[in-house]
């Protein structure tokens, strides 16, 4: 870590004091709390061969879990993009009673402890619950199925998409819409040809953030997911099961795959966000 500290060399001769101190504290705390613990992943894995690693991460049950996690997260993120655009639109363009309340509610999934959200959703969508009861009459089970997992993932993804799109819509000059309208374009044509292209990068970034969060989410999904292998077992649950069996190398191997996946996703989101910033600056 000391080589890292040497790397961060001050370039200009700022008169402001505290560079050494603040940099030292920042790098030390970052190393102790985040970087060194994360590197331990490789330390544990260095004891096993690549073949063992590969066997664990491509195990049939693990592959099935990737599929459940990926498909449910993707479907949830798509639904969130649709409703995210709708919500961002009504919150920025319309004035109506309850607008401020709705705006404040968007962050509820951030503020509500995930375990509380988890047990509330499971109960609400179970056969005896308010919503689950309605669907049970039609023969559809929600809790302990992939539908339930998807609903929990929609719940935690809402703020990511809405809060990505909202600032872009707020900055979007209504002049263009007015011009298009003056030229005789219909409302729906204006939305799809003028507004949508402008908010698309933000919607994509929101999609990526919601998707990444859903993949890793544990608390709000674990209760509603039944943990049935090949059916409703998500990747974080497989890691948790391996940990409960004290199979640390296997848990760590699958964790590494997830971390790499998250980094790739994050990298793509950052590229999109750089694009958005370019647009925002004009």
């Amino acid at each position, binding site marked *: 870590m000391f080589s890292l500290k040497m*790397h961060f060399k*001050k*370039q200009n001769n*700022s*008169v*402001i*004091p*505290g*560079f050494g*101190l*603040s940099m030292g*504290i*920042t790098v030390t*705390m*970052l190393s102790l*709390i*985040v970087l*060194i*613990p*994360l590197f*331990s992943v490789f330390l*544990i894995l260095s004891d096993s061969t690549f073949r063992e690693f590969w066997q664990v991460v491509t195990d049939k049950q693990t592959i099935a879990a990737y599929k459940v996690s990926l498909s449910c997260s993707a479907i949830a993120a798509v639904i969130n993009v649709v*409703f995210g655009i*709708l*919500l961002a639109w*009504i*919150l920025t363009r*319309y004035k109506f009673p309850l607008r401020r309340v709705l705006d*404040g*509610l968007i*962050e*509820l999934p951030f*503020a*509500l*402890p*995930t*375990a*509380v959200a988890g*047990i*509330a959703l499971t*109960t609400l969508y179970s056969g005896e*619950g*308010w*919503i689950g009861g309605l669907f049970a009459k039609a023969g559809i089970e929600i809790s302990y199925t992939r539908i339930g997992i998807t609903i929990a993932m929609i*719940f935690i993804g*809402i703020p990511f998409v809405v809060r990505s799109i909202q600032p872009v819509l707020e900055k979007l000059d209504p002049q263009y819409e007015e011009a298009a309208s003056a030229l005789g374009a219909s*409302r729906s044509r204006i939305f799809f040809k003028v507004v949508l292209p402008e908010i698309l990068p933000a919607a994509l970034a929101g999609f990526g953030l919601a998707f990444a969060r859903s*993949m*890793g*989410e*544990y*608390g709000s999904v674990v*209760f509603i997911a039944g943990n049935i292998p090949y059916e409703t077992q998500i990747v*974080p649950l497989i*890691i948790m099961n391996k940990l409960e069996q004290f199979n*640390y190398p296997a848990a760590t191997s699958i964790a590494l795959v*997830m*971390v790499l996946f*998250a980094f790739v996703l*994050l990298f793509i989101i950052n590229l999109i966000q750089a694009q958005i910033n370019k647009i925002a600056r004009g």
Partner: protein
Amino acid sequence: MRQKLVKWLLIVLGTAFLGVMLVLPLATVLVYALRQGWETFSQAIAEEYAIKALNLTLLATFITVIVNTTFGVFAAWAISKFQFRGKQVLTALIDIPFSISPIIAGLVFILVFGRIGWAYPLLEAWNIKIVFALPGIVLATIFVTFPFVSRELIPLMEAQGSDEEEAAALMGAKGLLIFRKVTLPHIKWGLLYGVILCTARALGEFGAVSVVSGHLRGQTNTLPLHVEILFNEFKLTAAFAVSSILVLIAVIILILRNIVEYRVKREER
């Protein structure tokens, strides 16, 4: 006329979505908590293990917020007031915990301090317990909420530039004095905003803590973990009664957040 119809259709659709997805789960917690009357509710809350769990959660949150606020202020100072090579790398490294599953956040501390960890012999020699004890719970919570404060402060302090700090430094003011008298007044709402977000997440952290806590009732059980145990024992009313404490805190945080966000927007101007 048609425009008005579309407007109200969209509003109803959006409100219905939030109603079903957000308000109904919240209502579920409160209704189930109180469905067997006030007495059962207050008994569940006043139960010995629930109170111990609440105390542990508050203690872990308090330490986490102090640590992450300290880090956030120093990191934001280094990153926003100076130019140096590797700044973007440093910013990206700080954001890592955002993209990591809470389960993995807990796992890494087991890999360091657990029975198989490389630091385990050292801890054993000094008779220190980290995993399955308070230090592990605190470390995992700190990890998960690590970037919350710095992330709020960095853009705010970058937008405000460093002219005023430079002027103060040229007049001979020391670092701490500059921070307190020049920087802090400009960023106080942003700082508070970051602290609120950090508190909310730390209070409710479940996955990471679940991995490192060991679930010892009355010792290493936080409030969210206590909720899990009650729910899995089919004590629904008690689980939701304890949850309602967390919901109450969440709603207060949400209201505070909205007030402070309004102030941050004014600060940015």
